[in-house]
């Protein structure tokens, strides 16, 4: 990891009210790669993403993105800086069509209508099902299709870093396989991805680099091809 990391987090602490969840996270996301964060639920994976995107206040430590200090910025500043966040449970906007859901992903972008339409077509080509049913209410889609729409909505903001919270939760294995393929394709087109994933097998197949989070602190971390052999990881998280 010779180049400076795209995202650098040091000593990050955060929580909800007086319940502290993150007890000092240190993490680096190299540009151009897929990095994954694994660990059991309740370990603080989602809280970490929500703290980076400004939904949860930082109590200590700092967040650096492309060299700029982002600690404590509001969600719209974080998005403007180029970090998009696909939230846990997809959370598409009910009562809005698939097309409107995707368009609102570009809410902050000032470019012309044509550029935005162009990006919309790019998303449609990646997930054709979305184009077929673009006028339908987004929440009538199946779990897997909703995840595609949520990822598409994230891409529409033209980020440098795409954070995805729980890709596979509640999805049938078949849907997860298809989504993993699309993510690889998106990454190859130059978008850095930070993936929070509870299913370690899927995470390690996708990511080149992994951080294991236990009760709010980074436990083991390193390249996934080494970690796959690590007995501690295999026993605790892969049940093999």
């Amino acid at each position, binding site marked *: 990891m010779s180049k400076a990391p795209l995202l650098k987090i040091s000593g990050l602490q955060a929580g909800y009210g007086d319940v502290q969840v993150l007890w000092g996270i240190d993490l680096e996301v190299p540009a151009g790669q897929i990095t994954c964060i694994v660990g*059991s639920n*309740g370990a603080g994976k989602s809280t970490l993403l929500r703290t980076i995107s400004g939904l949860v206040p930082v109590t200590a430590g700092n967040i650096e993105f492309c060299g700029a200090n982002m600690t404590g910025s509001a969600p719209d500043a974080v998005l403007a800086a180029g970090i998009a966040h696909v939230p846990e449970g997809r959370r598409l906007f009910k009562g809005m069509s698939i097309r409107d859901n995707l368009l609102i992903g570009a809410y902050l972008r000032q470019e012309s209508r044509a550029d935005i339409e162009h990006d919309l077509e790019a998303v449609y080509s990646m997930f054709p099902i979305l184009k077929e049913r673009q006028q339908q209410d987004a929440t009538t889609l199946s779990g897997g299709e909703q995840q595609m729409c949520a990822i598409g909505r994230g891409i529409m903001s033209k980020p440098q870093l795409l954070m995805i919270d729980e890709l596979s939760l*509640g999805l049938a*294995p078949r849907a997860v*396989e298809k989504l993993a393929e699309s993510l690889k394709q998106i990454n190859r087109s130059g978008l850095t991805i930070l993936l929070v994933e509870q299913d370690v097998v899927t995470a390690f197949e996708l990511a080149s680099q992994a951080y294991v989070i236990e009760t709010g602190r980074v436990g083991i971390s390193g390249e996934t091809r080494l970690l796959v052999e690590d007995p501690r990881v295999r*026993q605790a*998280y892969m*049940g093999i």
Partner: protein
Amino acid sequence: MSTILEVRDLSKNFGGLHAVKNVSFSLKKGEIVGLIGPNGAGKTTLVNLITGVLKATSGNVIFNGQDVTAQRPFQAARSGLARTFQIVQPFPQMTVLENVTAGALFAAGASHRRQAEQQAMEHLEFVGLAPQALRPATSLTLPSRKRLELAKSLAMNPKVLLLDEVNAGLNTSEIEQALTLMRAIAARGITIMLIEHLMKVVLSLSERILVLHHGELISQGDPQTVITDPRVVEAYLGSKFAARQQGVAPTAGVAHV
């Protein structure tokens, strides 16, 4: 073994959308049955229909010989039909002990609060939460919250226990502990229906498996036949899982998907 719960072509549609379509099955006393299916297949809707949270469009539910289709949830709870929630639902501003006492006091009908609290403490010891009895329920980690749900439903001294994704979000070692707990519950003669989309849990515990897909029961039977049933593989498991199955005997540790 006599049947304790029978569901006869139960259906529920929400304005055109068939969430559950003529589902029929029955549970024998003391049996452990798995109900699997992808998210949105209608598993939780089915549980809500059986426990009276939702009114069925057609078909009925026979529990302990009585037709309980139109029962309200609290009547189902009092007659011994308990369920845990997929999204854990504690009473937020109450302690762990109070949460479990509620089950003993209302569903199991303990005469007064002191007696209910004694019973609650026993169940907390059984699931290993006794030390946190006086802590607020919200301070528990996710695995212990799941055990709180379990303790609460046990306190309702149920005849049938519907465990709705009680293992979702747990890592492998936490699931191991949950499995031993469930085997201990089954040993007490309580019939368990395990609602999951984690294959590992369902395979190693259930004597029979029902597969739900788009609201319909597409397969029923012992674990081996079900996971090799082509319709199940096509609709739910995905080729990679099936491939992995051929290589490894089902009862050995199977990477949960």
